[in-house]
């Protein structure tokens, strides 16, 4: 870990002003500190934003505004979140550990970085860590890597569970920066690697996440967060499915579906969602949607299985959502 300056910001404006090249904002630090220990992040300056007044959870405009500094635990155990956005609660609680969730912030969760082995290993090349150095994950140890939207430069995945739910819920990320305030639809917040895998998001330099806004609740009953991983808890997703359905009798009125563990960002396929809408909520419909989604999957040398796993997980996730029997967090049996 390198030596760095530390400044504490009292307001968002102060934090933005303190920003410069080589600076990093720090909130919970659950990812950033690790990355610094691994020599992946070497900030000259840490701007401590934990004192900013951004840890509230407020109702607004029929939805809910999650302050960027509200901890994952605070959001997950908020009564309004539990009542109206249980999909978000379940996704948060499917990730990390109680200790990490107590420290990790909402904004930081959005900005956590990939768990690609090569990214973490300063002894190997990595285009995300050192642009232009190469991607040894391609053709290497890539069991956990992307099957959607990868590029020749990077096949990393985004590790968050919470973000998969936020993608399905169509949240909006409010940010503030040197260029003023703006709102970014969730689907446009994270990006695909393309030729610039060093950029995880579309945040401009110095921009800070202020809040994550949830639109009006649509899936308080018919939802699920189904996560498949290499052990039954405390592991990143091989494939996860966030699903929310609005049903009219047995007919799907609205479908929102996002996948985790499979791409550089939470993966949505609008065509598959559109295909489901108006269809009966049956396994046949779900299979049709799943087939459509995985049709564009491209595997790496060690993760061909993820395509079939994703296909089956989508079907099961939609079954759970339609039946109103979301995946239990404590009973690891998959309903």
């Amino acid at each position, binding site marked *: 870990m390198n030596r760095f300056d530390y400044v504490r910001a009292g307001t968002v404006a102060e934090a933005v002003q303190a920003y410069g090249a080589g600076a990093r904002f720090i909130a919970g630090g659950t990812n950033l500190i690790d990355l610094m220990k*691994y020599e992946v992040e070497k900030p000259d300056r840490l701007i401590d934003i934990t004192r900013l007044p951004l840890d509230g959870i407020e109702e607004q405009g029929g939805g809910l505004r999650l302050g960027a500094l509200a901890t994952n635990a605070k959001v997950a155990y908020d009564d309004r979140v539990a009542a109206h956005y249980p999909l978000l609660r379940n996704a948060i609680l499917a990730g990390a550990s109680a200790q990490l969730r107590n420290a990790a912030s909402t904004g930081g969760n959005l900005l956590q970085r990939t768990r690609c082995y090569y990214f973490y290993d300063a002894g190997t090349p990595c285009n995300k860590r050192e642009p232009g150095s190469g991607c040894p994950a391609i053709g290497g140890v890539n069991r956990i890597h992307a099957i959607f939207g990868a590029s020749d430069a990077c096949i990393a995945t985004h590790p968050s569970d919470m973000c998969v739910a936020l993608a399905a819920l169509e949240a909006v990320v409010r940010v503030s920066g040197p260029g003023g305030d703006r709102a970014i639809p969730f689907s446009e917040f994270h990006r695909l690697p393309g030729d610039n895998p060093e950029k995880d998001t579309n945040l401009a330099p110095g921009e800070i996440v202020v809040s994550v806004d949830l639109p009006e609740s649509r899936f308080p009953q018919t939802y699920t967060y189904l996560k498949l991983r*290499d*052990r039954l*808890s405390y*592991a990143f997703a091989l494939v996860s499915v966030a699903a929310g359905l609005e049903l009219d009798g047995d007919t799907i009125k609205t479908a929102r579906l996002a996948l985790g563990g499979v791409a550089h960002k939470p993966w949505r396929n609008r065509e598959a969602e559109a295909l489901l809408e108006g269809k009966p909520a049956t396994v046949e419909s779900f299979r049709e949607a799943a087939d459509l989604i995985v049709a564009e999957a491209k595997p790496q040398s060690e993760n061909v299985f993820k395509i079939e796993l994703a296909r089956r997980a989508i079907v099961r996730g939609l079954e759970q959502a339609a039946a109103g029997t979301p995946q239990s967090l404590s009973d690891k049996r998959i*309903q």
Partner: protein
Amino acid sequence: MATQISTAAGTDRHVGSPRSRVDGPAKVTGLAKYAGEFTAADLVHGYVVGSTIARGTITGIDCAAAEAVPGVLKVLTHANRPDVSGKADSYRDMVGPPGTPLRPLYDANILFSGQPVALVLAEDFETARYAASLVKVTYAAETPETDIDALVPTAYDPPTKRDGIKPPPEPWGDADAAFGKAPIRVERQYRMANEHHNPMEPHASTVIVEADGTYTAYDKIQGVANSQQYLTGAFGLKPEQVRVMNPYLGGGFGAGLRPQYQLFLAMLAAKDLGRSVRVVLTREQMWSFTYRPEAVQTVSLGASPDGALQALRHDAVQGTSRYEDYQENIVNWSGTLYKCDNVKLTYRLAKLDTATPGDMRAPGAVSGLFAIESAMDELAVETGKDPIELRLINYTDSDPVEGKPYGSKALKSCFEQGAARFGWAKRDPKPRSMREGRELVGWGMASGIWEALMMPSSARAVLSADGKLEIGNSTGDIGTGTYTILTQIGADALGLPMEDVTTKLGDTNLAEAPVAGGSWTAASSGTAVMKACRNIAAQVFVLARQMENSPLANVDFERVVFTGGRIEVAGDPSRGVSIKDAMRAGGFETIEVTEKAGPDSDFAKQFECYTHQAVFVEVKVDEDLGQVRVTRVVSAIAAGKILNPKTARSQIIGATVMGIGSALHEESMLDHRLGRFMNRNLGEYHVPANADIHDLDVIFVDEEDKANPLGVKGVGEIGIVGTAAAIANAVFHATGKRVRDLPITIDKLL
């Protein structure tokens, strides 16, 4: 020899009874100090720079930027290594395999990824760590070979056998011909992943320079005598110049059997700087030494239609390093466990560009039993026999390899009691015959076997006039409960409450004892402690008898019992003398005895000594998604006398969890192009989490054994050996899918 000593002379109040760990309060309150926690006023911190290539040569090391950091004292590399022996023989330790031991910072050659190439020394850890990131090493890299599959065809029989590891026996009968003619044949390849030990405590060494110029080294090691031998060899020191201590170990599992490079580097720096030095490895750096190496195994079983084995072949190829021939016993278990007239067992090595592998909990048995016990399950399916019945058909009461009967073998009791507890009789043998909702349910079982070893060991005991007893030797308590069982043995030998007995371990100033490994510590140190304490008992008895008007004046030693701090005539508590009074009357402040104990060679000539396991597993597997849950395990263990059912149960529970990890989770993933393990942290190298562990049930069956006077066989390893095979067998029963390469991850069940 030792058989003359009888535990019946004591009151046996503690041995055999569940007792909480005597070191528990120190551990949970943080009073227990570990190797990386000892300190000195002028402590220097060392941080290791590891090689990023697996094979090749260092062409340059630029330390200028690191040395320019304020607080950095020096950077040690092969180019400026202080004067120290370069002879490989100087680096031998007590348990190392044949070959040329690693000489850290010896030259520019790179033998494995992560090899230490520099040690940055600074006034604080953070500075050392930061400066280490500024050391620029350039290499001439060569293509590494870490893929064992590529090397199977050229695998070799190790020319020098490893001390203490039995090579495969000569074949008997004609296994090839018998297999060719057998009516039922099973021939399959099995493999399991490279695994790393991952104890909670990182490897660390703190070398203190004492005022008189001697050294005290606190080292994460399973036996301090080994570190002392290593340091005296490598640095040309006399034993009295270097005391090694390690009172507690935060998990070893074999990773602490050999002194690792951080000990050498800390001592090198301490000698060079004349200051005390601590070197702590990071979790990531703990992938740069010792691991359970992947083995590629083929098991060929030929049997009659009724399941009797006619041919048994077990061939294994296992990885070792470029510089040492690490060896395990993988295949002999197959010959030992089953009766068969035609047996051929082979074991060969393949040279990989990795660090030398090392012993990891039940080394060899975990790999070998996964293969043979999976193959036996496949044979049970082929012959239509119940898996237990098949094992009984091929049961043997004598060891076919050595041609000697077992001193004791209560495996049949394990089958019976384990099956009863599990409900095995209700099993429908048909795969996919049980389901609950969307989960397929499977029941599987396997046998396990491990050596019951005893090593020469000494122990010292000191009884004080106040009735307090101190016992101890240099072996380590690696978290298994050694402090506790030795305290129990000492307390019983002299009839004292456990609170009056203090056990000291992990210090080369104590009586010499071997490393703690191989499940031999209870038998070895336990017997030595018992002998020393019984010797003291005899001396105190003499003092008691010599007292004026002694109620014991005309009583023989065989007729007294030691209980409640007193020596009493058996059956007549009114006739007795307190130990304190006897000591005072005799004018003794202390009585001190050091005794040695070793294996009973007469017994060993006649009998073979093993522990056994029958393990039963229930799994539930999601039919579509392949998620496996191990919902029940019953592990029935035959391990002789159980000294402390509470700590022994913990050993079996822990080993079962590790077996679940081996079966479902653990896998150190190599990038063969880089020769580098890639998932070097506990987030990406998976061991079981709480959610993966459900009902674990342990049964200790009665088993009398006479290999040592305690009748103890050791319980550290027997709980893991058959567990992975039982899980794989249960997964087959649930799904109809036979997974022959561990770990059984989701992708293998889709």
